[in-house]
């Protein structure tokens, strides 16, 4: 089991969701974050006070997958999220020791296999 943690551009979220859907990934969790990377920093001015914005809006998608799905999911995100310009983001793959589905108390692979809704 792995946790895929992909940091992407907010405007690419819908494309990535679609790609993941097509890659048969069903469960995921999304959060709004701010990133700092190689992007040029915007300067904003408020009443004569100038500020450099060191952080840029990003979205993180976290997906718990069983090993066979890791590559497919990574590939799906990579392709859908790429624009080719600095700031496209990163994907981290982290090891997971255990997964539980709260509703049924199923464990591990069973816990992330979708159930017909």
């Amino acid at each position, binding site marked *: 089991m792995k946790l895929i943690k992909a940091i992407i551009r907010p405007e690419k979220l819908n494309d990535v969701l679609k790609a993941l859907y097509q890659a048969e990934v069903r469960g995921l969790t999304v959060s709004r974050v701010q990133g700092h990377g190689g992007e040029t920093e915007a300067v*904003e001015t*408020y009443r004569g006070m100038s*500020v450099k914005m*060191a952080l840029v809006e990003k979205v993180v998608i976290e997906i718990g997958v069983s090993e066979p799905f890791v590559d497919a999911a990574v590939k799906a995100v990579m392709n859908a999220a790429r624009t080719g310009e600095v700031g496209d983001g990163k994907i981290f793959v982290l090891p997971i020791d255990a997964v539980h589905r709260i509703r049924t108390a199923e464990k591990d692979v069973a816990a992330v296999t979708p159930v017909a809704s």
Partner: protein
Amino acid sequence: MAHTIRLGRAGAGLMPLLSGAIRLALSGLLLLATPGFAFAQEAAAISGGDTAWMLISTALVLLMTAGLAFFYGGLVSSKNVLNTMMMSFIAFGFSGVLWALVGYSLAFGAGNAFVGDFSMALLGGVGTEPSGTIPHMLFMAYQGAFAIITAALISGAIIGRMKFGAYVTFISIWGLVVYAPVAHWVWNTGGWLFGLSALDFAGGAVVHVNAGAGALAAALVLGPRTDYGRQAMLPHNVPFVLLGAGLLWFGWMGFNGGSALAANELAALGVVNTLFAPAATLVVWSLLDVMFAKHITAVGAATGIVVGLVAVTPAAGFVSPMSAMAIGAIAAFPSYFIIRWRARSGLDDSLDVFAAHGVGGFTGAILTGVFATTALNAAGQDGLLYGNPRQVLIQFIAVGAVFVYSGVMTAVILKVVQAVAGLRPESDAERRGMDVLAHGEEGYATGDGAVLILHEELNGNAAK
């Protein structure tokens, strides 16, 4: 009719030499200028009651543009909120100043049947002498508030995809080349639609059809935003939309009621109709929403209120409250279904200015020709229901002329601005949002990771 004024010969201007000279120069520029300047001379006096009502009505119409900023601003995504609101607020400045400098004179100067003249440019002769029963300059300012909001209304069609400088240039020209002549047609005693007896109490044609046609043309010339039809643009703050609707309704009391230019029976009729017509629209809109959206929506309620306000605008001082409610109720239908169609079409009139103001104004203007009665306003006309079917035709002509003129001229102005300066920003502006790109600001900054730029030396090494 409403908005028509009789001016006493205006008193001597201030610093008359300077401004007189400029006015003379301007007059030479005006191709359509007519030499005549012949207002009816008439003894009149300022009425305290009428003036009190027009003072507050002016303030109310001014507030509407701020209300519009919230109505529009709430409907867009948060990355475009400031750009959207600024499109309204900047009109206070540019449209307001230009109105005083030349717009008022072009609209209400004697001129010919199609446009005024420069006789009152730089407010020459616009003093505190009575115009009707209120000070002349108050009439000028009241009309100025109309010019401001009409320009701002158009902005709803072009959300998130127009260079701000180009927009400011556009509305500045538009106010003089489109708004002022159209106001002249309808509200100046010498205007050709006035001569036709077209009824437009508070601006169904002058303001709403005019802005609606401009919006349609602008949406077509600019084209849809890049991700239109693929990415939903959800309202980032529906309470702001409701606030805008509430402030608009409140201000509209001065818009429609103030168009009587006095605190009399007509003003009362205007205010009463402005209360009940949108109420009726809201009821019908809610029922349509239940049928087609499965719920009574808040955005729908706000939209319905605005459509009702638009529809009653041309009618407010000519029809009875029961008729106003009928107009409000009927007007819900065309606007509702055109909004539904538009949302599925390729036309990115982003905030449905055409459907709400163009179509709403059209419906209201035609229905004014149906429900108007001289029993309530002797200066008006009887409508179809009161035995004068011809009035419906006149209303069609008035609305049609305004629609065509505004649509064509808007497109022409935009094409010129496009040729000179370009209309749309670099492509990633839409992605990142116009607030940061066009205004260098965020609507809701948290300050996280914001590094003060204090001195030159700091530029290089602070947090990056």
